């Protein structure tokens, strides 16, 4: 198997996550990724595409997204215009069929990585409407009487923030992995990817303070990886003496985005 994912220089993946990715690739099933915000769900697809040298197609799902949008859109208005003004080629409906992201991924010449981002944002029925297409990797366009079929089954990665529950029938067809919030060891690896050179005391103190804050039960919005990276950057630039970090927690606003949380943290100090 040359299609195996081992993480990349920029993306630190746990062995379990790498395992899940490789299982999904080998079994040609969509990989469903859940996890706390800031655990790098979306970045995973980028990393997989990069590591395997494949093109990445991103389908960002919004609350108004319909399953049909991912397949194709029939631009009737354009066709109407063309017919009114006597443009040529109106008979050719195919000219007015525009493929969506899923359609794009299916019709690509080489295997691609398809990221369906935040699938839970869409309507409740959305995942069910895609069952057939993701299973068979094909769909039919009635207007042109043509079937779009994947030459190479794309590697499908789906992320969910668990805003809505996903239907069982959909889940059964997926490989599932829950990304845990990285522990201190792995976090250190991640941080080192972002900073070439880092004062060891600063890192140790910042990490300790960070996990202490995350451990406070009263905090509503826990800081995540990206906040920690920003915070360390702020600490570096601010020239704060490293040994004071844990005791004083300067620039707390970078870590905690809610006033209430900052107040609670101050009280717990």
């Amino acid at each position, binding site marked *: 198997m040359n299609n195996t994912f081992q993480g990349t220089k920029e993306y630190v993946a746990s062995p*379990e996550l790498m*395992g*899940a990715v*490789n*299982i*999904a690739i*080998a*079994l040609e*099933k969509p990989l*469903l990724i*859940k996890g706390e915000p800031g655990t790098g769900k979306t970045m995973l697809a980028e990393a997989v595409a990069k590591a395997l040298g494949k093109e990445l197609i991103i389908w960002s799902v919004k609350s108004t997204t319909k399953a049909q949008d991912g397949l194709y859109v029939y631009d*009737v*208005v354009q*066709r*109407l215009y063309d*017919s*009114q003004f006597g443009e040529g080629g*109106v008979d050719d409906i195919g000219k007015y069929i525009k493929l969506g992201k899923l359609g794009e991924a299916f019709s690509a010449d080489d295997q691609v990585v398809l990221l369906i981002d935040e699938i839970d944002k869409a309507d*409740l029925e959305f995942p069910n409407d895609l069952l057939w297409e993701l299973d068979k990797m094909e769909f039919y366009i009635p207007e042109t009487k043509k079937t779009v079929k994947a030459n190479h089954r794309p590697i499908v990665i789906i992320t969910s923030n668990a805003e*809505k*529950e996903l*239907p*069982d029938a959909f*889940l*059964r*067809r*997926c*490989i*599932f*992995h*829950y990304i*845990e919030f990285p522990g201190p060891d792995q976090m250190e690896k991640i941080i080192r990817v972002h900073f070439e050179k880092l004062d060891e005391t600063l890192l140790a103190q910042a990490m300790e303070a960070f996990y202490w804050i995350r451990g406070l039960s009263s905090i509503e919005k826990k800081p995540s990886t990206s906040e920690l990276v920003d915070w360390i950057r702020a600490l570096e630039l601010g020239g704060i003496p490293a040994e004071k970090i844990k005791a004083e927690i300067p620039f707390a606003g970078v870590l905690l985005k809610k006033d209430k949380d900052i107040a609670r943290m101050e009280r717990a100090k």
Partner: protein
Amino acid sequence: MFIAFFYLLRARGLGTDTTEWMTLMEGLLRGLHGNSLSGFYNLCRATLVKTEADYDKFDMTFAEYFKDVPYEGELPEMVTEWLANKEEALKDFHAFLKTQDYEWKTQEEILKTFEERLREQREEHNAGTYWIGTGGFTNFGHSGHRPQGIRITGEGRYRRAFEVLSERRFRDFRKDNVLDIRSFQMAFRLLRQYSDRVNEAETEFDTDGTIRETADNAGSLKIKYKKPRKNVVKVLLLMDSGGSMDYYAGICSMLFQAAEKSNHFKELHVYYFHNCIASTLYKQPQLFYEDGVSTEWVLNQYGSEYKVIIVGDALMDMYDLVAKHYDRTLGEARYSGFDMLERFKEQYPHAVWLNPEQPPYGAYRSEDPEKAWALGPNGTILPKYMATAGRHGLGLDDAGFGWGGGYGGNWGESYGRIADIFPMYPLTVEGLERAMKRLLVSK
């Protein structure tokens, strides 16, 4: 291949199905487990478990099934050492028991003694060494110090149980909860689907349809109209709060969230009450005085086109139903709880009552409503003293069966009385679906 594992997973409440199992088999055929136990564990988990809430349950089931599998390498070192020393550990344990003056017993022996104690014991007995109870050094009970025994409810003290591959990191996610918001939302949807089928004239200009038809007509204009797709359903949700409803706070909040998220209702208004609707309804579940609105105002404000969903356990003292409470807006005590419910019923032809509570003990179903009031288990007729101590029949359900029962006492009686006024449904997904369908037919 170890098909028994498949059935064990199902028996332990993981909804594994054949599709997922076949996926696992395919994975094994392709060698994705990499010939290691941890690889096999990861493959199983990725293919069979679809929510982090089940990770813990899966870990325990996996250990239960595979704990005796001879195993080679790749697990955390600690576990490896521990497993390697299994025999010795058991010997150590026996030696330890001896130093503590306990004799070592097999599981069967302990179970047998337990049955004996169950027969002998007549009263509560805690902190001892012999009887069933909490604490102490007995083999039976919970929070005790005896190294061997049967834990009965409560929490373990020494957690002397086989732990899984890794520590149970996913314990917090566990929810032994069949219901979820999604299923409630799906049930609420029924209220929309049906409202769309209202027979109305095609009055709304259909832009997409017109464009499509015109285009298909090679450019000469063809106008299309469609039925208005607006959802006309307006909902008034009244929820019992506090007291005996505290047990159901979780499920009620799920229902509330599902209703809130079902943004397809034209209007949704939520009010809270305690036990029975009285002269005041509250905007917040805490029932603070300043959140109160007069029930009269609610009745005036929301016309009979509203569909009313009342959620409550319908268990209260009959006093709440019968007594006329003083009304500060009317300045007099005019309506009892009963009267209020009757007024709601009169004003709203579409009203249902959802109940998280099972019908009280002694409520049984009968094909003959006349006899239902005195019915006992399996269709037996209850002795008169039991039947009259309770209440009369619970009325008819959808299928035309009578509900009745003997024993219910004061608590049970209110349940039956309210079920006489409003069609009552259990607060489950299926019950909600039935209730939603009921709301769409006028009766």
